[in-house]
């Protein structure tokens, strides 16, 4: 950027500072190569967010500002539960910032440091989730270019295996279409983390594509399974020479307990020539799943044939087999995805679609205070009306609380033997998620909270829920179903979110 005095004199960041009148800084979460990440409170939404600031020393550097802005733009374009969501970005008196969803958990680097090496099952989940996020990025022509354990965040409790992996830091990402037109990462700098670099990165090439990320992810997988990276060197030069010229030790020689088939997977994934590697994240994930001899519980469901792994003990083989439970009266057809968006806002559909992609989620719906399904997304064919009917029953159930609790409802989670239902209120609207019994509670909770945060951002940007979720004029018909949605007295009983008085504790009596 310029050497503008105002920028140089931009105020520092400290707890209590307010940024763009929207974020109040709480505490430092960590530091990266380009800046620091702070926990902040979104004042309008009353929501924790992570705000990343470019370092003061780099604020006036054109290249670094460009990279910082590119990170915000790249990550914001990718809608995947496996990529951290960007909620906002801006420039507050010279302080460039990116506001992202606040993630609870730890990065894979710290997790590896604590655990040394990981099981095949956990590694399979890391590969599956990372491939899913990369698949979305690569489809948009975005290569991450710095895949390493520190940039793979495990939300939830990684120790019990119930994590949702999210890819962080698109700071060195580059749109493939813009290769050659940008200079900030092409001036002879080595961008990325050496131990996880692809051979093309190690050679200093700038024309990288998604296959470079896949190589780096294979290095991460090798590290997970063996506790060390496949390419070593006493100096940076030695390391780069090793990446460019050496073949890694077969993984089964490092740990004979691992399936021999993994040797073939790594042999292909770590090829020096990108054209001899797996050509897509999807192909690489499916091959890993095959050689690992298992389907991880959160493995990607890329095809409709694998949409229903959790319904019953085996894989569904016909439409009749596909139901929420083993004895279900509510059948859903194989391959019959069901999607609707009756709101005038185009931003709602991608948020629901992303949530519907989380492992073992059967469907997602947004329901109005009058119990009207406004939008839904179900890869399992759940109809919109089911969400209205669930909302009606939930409203009825929570009426009992109206006598004892005065606070606004935030969330409800129901764990049945064969399914789980999560309800998250955004104002008076309800976001409802139906999952199978195999949907991991932590993964689902993190995903629902992420989606709710993004919906709240939509509400704020639109100037209120009424505007954000306003139905299209052509979508005014009530949805039939259940006990007569639209005609039930409950349908006009007021806000779905109950307002109730506080339960007194015994000590207050």
């Amino acid at each position, binding site marked *: 950027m310029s050497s503008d005095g105002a920028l140089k004199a931009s105020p520092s960041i400290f707890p209590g500072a307010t940024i763009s009148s929207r974020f109040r800084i709480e505490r430092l979460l960590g530091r990266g190569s380009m800046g620091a990440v702070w926990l902040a409170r979104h004042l309008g939404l009353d929501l924790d967010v992570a705000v990343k600031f470019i370092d003061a020393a780099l604020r006036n550097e054109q290249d670094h500002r460009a990279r910082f802005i590119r990170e915000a733009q790249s990550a914001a374009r990718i809608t995947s539960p496996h990529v951290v969501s960007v909620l906002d970005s801006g420039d507050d008196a010279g302080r460039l910032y990116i506001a992202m969803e606040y993630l609870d958990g730890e990065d894979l680097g710290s997790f590896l440091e604590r655990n040394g090496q990981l099981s095949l099952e956990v590694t399979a989940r890391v590969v599956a989730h990372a491939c899913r996020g990369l698949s979305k990025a690569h489809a948009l022509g975005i290569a991450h270019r710095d895949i390493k354990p520190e940039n793979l965040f495990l939300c939830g409790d990684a120790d019990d295996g119930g994590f949702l992996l999210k890819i962080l830091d698109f700071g060195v990402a580059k749109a493939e279409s813009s290769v050659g037109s940008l200079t900030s990462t092409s001036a002879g700098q080595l961008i990325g983390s050496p131990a996880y670099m692809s051979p093309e990165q190690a050679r200093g090439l700038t024309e990288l594509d998604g296959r470079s990320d896949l190589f780096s992810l294979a290095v991460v997988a090798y590290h997970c399974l063996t506790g060390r990276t496949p390419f070593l060197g006493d100096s940076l030069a030695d390391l780069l020479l090793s990446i460019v010229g050496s073949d890694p030790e077969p993984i089964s020689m490092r740990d004979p307990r691992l399936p021999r088939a993994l040797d073939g997977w790594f042999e292909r994934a770590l090829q020096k020539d990108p054209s001899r590697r797996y050509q897509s994240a999807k192909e690489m994930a499916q091959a890993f799943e095959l050689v690992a001899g298992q389907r991880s519980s959160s493995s990607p469901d890329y095809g409709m044939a694998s949409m229903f792994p959790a319904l019953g003990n085996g894989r569904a083989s016909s439409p009749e087999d596909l139901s929420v439970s083993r004895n279900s009266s*509510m059948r859903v057809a194989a391959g019959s995805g069901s999607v609707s968006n009756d709101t005038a806002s185009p931003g709602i559909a991608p948020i629901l679609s992303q949530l519907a992609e989380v492992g073992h989620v059967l469907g997602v719906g947004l329901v109005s205070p009058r119990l009207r399904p406004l939008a839904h997304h179900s890869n399992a064919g759940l109809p919109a009306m089911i969400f209205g009917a*669930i909302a009606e029953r939930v409203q009825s159930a*929570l009426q009992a609380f109206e006598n004892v609790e005065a606070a*606004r409802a935030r*969330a409800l*989670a129901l764990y049945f*033997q064969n*399914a789980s239902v999560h309800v998250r209120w955004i104002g008076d609207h309800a976001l409802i998620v139906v999952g199978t019994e195999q949907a991991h509670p932590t993964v689902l909770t993190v995903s629902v909270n992420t989606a709710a945060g993004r919906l709240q951002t939509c509400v704020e940007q639109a100037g209120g829920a009424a505007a954000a979720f306003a139905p299209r004029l052509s979508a005014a018909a009530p949805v039939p179903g259940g006990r007569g949605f639209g005609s039930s007295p409950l349908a006009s009983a007021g806000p779905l979110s109950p307002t109730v008085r*506080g339960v007194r*504790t015994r000590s207050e009596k």
Partner: protein
Amino acid sequence: MDLEAICRSLKSVQGVARGSESGEVFAAAGQIDADTVCAVAAVTATALLEVGELLSAGPLERWYFATEEATYYASERGFLRVVAVGEPVRNAESNCKSLHAAR
């Protein structure tokens, strides 16, 4: 595990009570208006079962309801129900799971 121990083991939980599915209180520990919470949980759970029936999802095993001021947890097993009340927490799901496992 006794209720005192459960109460201590759950993060941000103030009180725990054990009762019948119809809301009768058998025992309580910590700060909880057990009569009220058990009665409300009984009415709520009965209605929530309809959500399960709608989805043919089988019996309700555990649930939680979070407001801006409190979180209510319930673990169902047979005709017994264990309920807990605590502060709003980020990991309500984790407490709910632990309550169900510990009871």
